[in-house]
């Protein structure tokens, strides 16, 4: 019996040998399959349900929205035939829907599917719920036209409809059961063929796809469906993602530590892809309870912090971060320098004076952070040193990410929590400025400014209003932008057609021979 078992195992090993040799000789993937290592298993494949980036990266291949963004973050049509007709008061959007578009189940998409999808989005998606109170009605005036009526003008609406994160995805109305999607079927260029949790998400080309014909520009324009298959492989361990990338096991690896840059550069199987100005680390302040409800105390923190040292500890090399007070980088229309004199003060004397004025009694300042993103923790350590130098007593609460996401919803448990965000296409896409966010920035002057900003349709005026809002951020300190950082990914040097974006997509990816 034991001998038979040994023989079976030996036979298995011998049979596996050719596969081993083949792997050693040719580790690259076939020309028509793109293998992408992502940072972990997406918490859901319902694109409406989550604001996690990994959900957007995967689901944008099989779900589509009415609008999308070009490479300059300008809103452009996707399932909509063209940009909407908006009434002068900014309250009615008439959206023509493209004809001849089919879902991956073969059914035809029409305005009734769009209406049902947008109503679901209003109910279950974070971004949809955020705008639901502003929407008066969503109706289909005919099979190919949708009319959205608003209670008041709301300028960010199209950006919200275009964003692939907490997406207003269009699905067949038959697949909506109350507040749930019963199937993962969209109109995208790829369809979900197989999902083995924690192992792979296999997408195959959707043969019935009708692409737009404009030249590809960002996620707008032609989606050529070049690869026959896209396999997303969740690889939660950062080092394993790097090793797999260097070995040529993946065509694209996302979310790599910047420490791996030199190693990737030396590899002939993979090349580093540095996405400059990917995102910004944020120290979010609790304005609902505790020490940070006192403005002087927040200003003391602002005066004490030294972003350059914090970012250097977190990212190691200047090429991976930038120190800049602007809440949007230079290439964005929202970029401005308002309030920048209050950034990077690193002035412990001023901070100590502000603390005295605030009547600080030595209560520990609780900074909630986690090792989930190592750079958060590293920034926290440097911040602690600077804050203590200014006279704060600091308590670092280092917990796992799940605990952090729960605790930050209880204002009694923290004073500052550390997070980060990619630079989003439009300021209204983040909840940081909202009075109802977990920060609770509820200042009457700011609320009015924000209301004006969201209701004004004139772009120039909106940019001016945002500049005022940015100035107010640095004056009232509801959060602290530490700086900006670059994201490191790795890409097969033979692959092209994958633009640099926080949410990479692969429908135009092609391999040179």
């Amino acid at each position: 019996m034991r001998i038979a078992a040994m023989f079976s195992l030996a036979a298995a090993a011998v049979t596996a040998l050719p596969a081993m040799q083949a792997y050693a000789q040719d580790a690259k993937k076939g020309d028509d399959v793109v293998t992408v290592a992502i940072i972990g298993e997406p918490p859901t494949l319902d694109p409406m349900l989550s604001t996690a980036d990994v959900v957007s990266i995967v689901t944008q291949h099989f779900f589509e929205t009415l609008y999308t963004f070009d490479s300059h973050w300008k809103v452009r049509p996707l399932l909509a035939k063209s940009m909407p007709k908006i009434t002068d008061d900014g309250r009615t959007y008439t959206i023509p829907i493209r004809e001849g578009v089919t879902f991956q189940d073969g059914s035809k998409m029409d305005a009734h599917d769009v209406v049902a999808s947008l109503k679901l989005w209003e109910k279950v998606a974070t971004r949809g719920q955020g705008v639901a109170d502003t929407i008066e009605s969503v109706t289909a005036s005919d099979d190919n036209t949708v009319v959205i009526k608003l209670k008041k003008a709301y300028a960010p609406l199209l950006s919200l409809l275009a964003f692939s994160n907490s997406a207003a995805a269009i699905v067949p109305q038959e697949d909506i059961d109350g507040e749930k999607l019963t199937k993962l079927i969209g109109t995208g260029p790829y369809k979900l063929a197989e999902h083995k949790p924690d192992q792979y998400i296999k997408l195959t080309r959707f043969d019935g796809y009708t692409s737009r014909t404009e030249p590809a520009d960002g996620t707008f324009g032609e989606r050529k469906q070049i690869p026959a298959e896209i396999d997303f492989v969740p690889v939660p361990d950062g080092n394993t993602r790097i090793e797999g990338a260097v070995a040529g096991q993946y065509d694209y690896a996302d979310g790599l530590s910047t420490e791996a840059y030199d190693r990737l550069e030396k590899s002939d199987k993979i090349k580093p892809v540095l996405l400059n100005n990917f995102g910004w680390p944020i120290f979010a302040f609790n304005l609902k309870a505790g020490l940070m409800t006192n403005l002087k105390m927040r200003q003391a923190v602002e005066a004490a912090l030294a972003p350059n040292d914090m970012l250097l500890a977190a990212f190691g090399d200047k090429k991976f971060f930038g120190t800049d007070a602007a809440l949007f980088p230079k290439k964005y229309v929202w970029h401005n320098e308002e309030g920048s004199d209050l950034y990077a003060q690193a002035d412990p004397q001023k901070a100590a004076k502000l603390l005295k004025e605030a009547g600080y009694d030595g209560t520990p300042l609780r900074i909630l952070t986690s090792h989930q993103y190592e750079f958060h923790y590293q920034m926290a350590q440097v911040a602690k040193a600077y804050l203590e130098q200014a006279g704060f007593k600091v308590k670092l609460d280092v917990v796992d990410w799940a605990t952090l996401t729960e605790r930050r919803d209880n204002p009694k448990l923290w004073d500052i929590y550390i997070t980060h965000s990619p630079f989003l296409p439009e300021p209204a896409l983040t909840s940081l400025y909202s009075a109802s966010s977990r920060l609770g920035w509820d200042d009457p002057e700011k609320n009015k400014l924000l209301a004006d900003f969201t209701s004004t349709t004139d772009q120039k005026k909106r940019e001016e209003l945002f500049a005022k809002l940015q100035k107010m951020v640095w004056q009232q300190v509801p959060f602290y932008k530490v700086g900006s950082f670059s994201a490191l990914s790795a890409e097969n040097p033979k692959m092209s057609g994958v633009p640099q974006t926080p949410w990479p997509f692969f429908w135009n990816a092609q391999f040179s021979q």
Partner: protein
Amino acid sequence: MARYVAKRVLGMIVVMFIVLTTVFIIVRLAPGDPASLMLGPEATPADVVALRARMGLDQPVVVQYFSFLGQIATGNLGQSIFFNQPVTQVIAARAEPTVLLTLFSIVIAVAIALPVGILSAYTRGSLFDQGSLSTAMLAASVPSFWLGLIFQQYLATGAGWFPVSGFGSPSATFFERVHFIILPSIVLGIVNSALIIRFSRAAMLDVLNDDFVRTARAKGMSEWRVVIRHALKSALIPIVTVVGLTFALLISGAIVTERVFNLPGLGSLVVGAVLRRDYPVIQGVLVVIAGLYVLINFLIDMLYLAIDPRVKY
């Protein structure tokens, strides 16, 4: 015998009940919230409360506990919050890599440990004995993740003999998947062989000086026959015990090794479930693991009957 088996089975049921209750309490005591994780960073507290209600996580803990016990009694481990699948289905999907990893690792560990342990005992005090003991000590001290990373870098990334991680592409055949298992199996085989070497050596030393071995030699038997047919057979009980426990440890998920090699087995599942606070999956996996431990211990006891006629229950 029948009375002993019945007593053991009853004991197993009591142990499992204690395990179920403990697991339920520990999982609920841990902070963290699956709704918040699922919704992502931009979710507001109100969104989280609404999703918790949709998931049924707002039910009183006592209601959840009795619902959990009721489900287990009917063989239902519940529904995964994140995968939206029955937990039994989620666990079944992870069985293949873990079972393969366990089998290959145990074969490698025994293939290394048994000859080395026997030879060490036989040549007690020799250079080989000293060397093998030191090597075993080193193997036991090396963290499996470190050895995994080193092997990954040199044998997979460097030499290209093995894939770095994962369990094969969607189109991979069974033997291609086996290929993904070999490197982590070698790591676990080496690490786990250390304990078996020490146990085999100690067990063999105990019996090599026994009267029956001396008698066998006096009868003119060959050394091979004395050592393998007589001494080894008598030394098997502690060896089988340690191999059995190693097997139980591995089948319950070589958590660190699975993580390093990105193997989608039970170890990765339980780590992922803890990080995501997928309560039904954590509970389900822990119940299955506890059940396997209890069962393997029972089987080891039964095996004693087969390999040692002196043992009677």
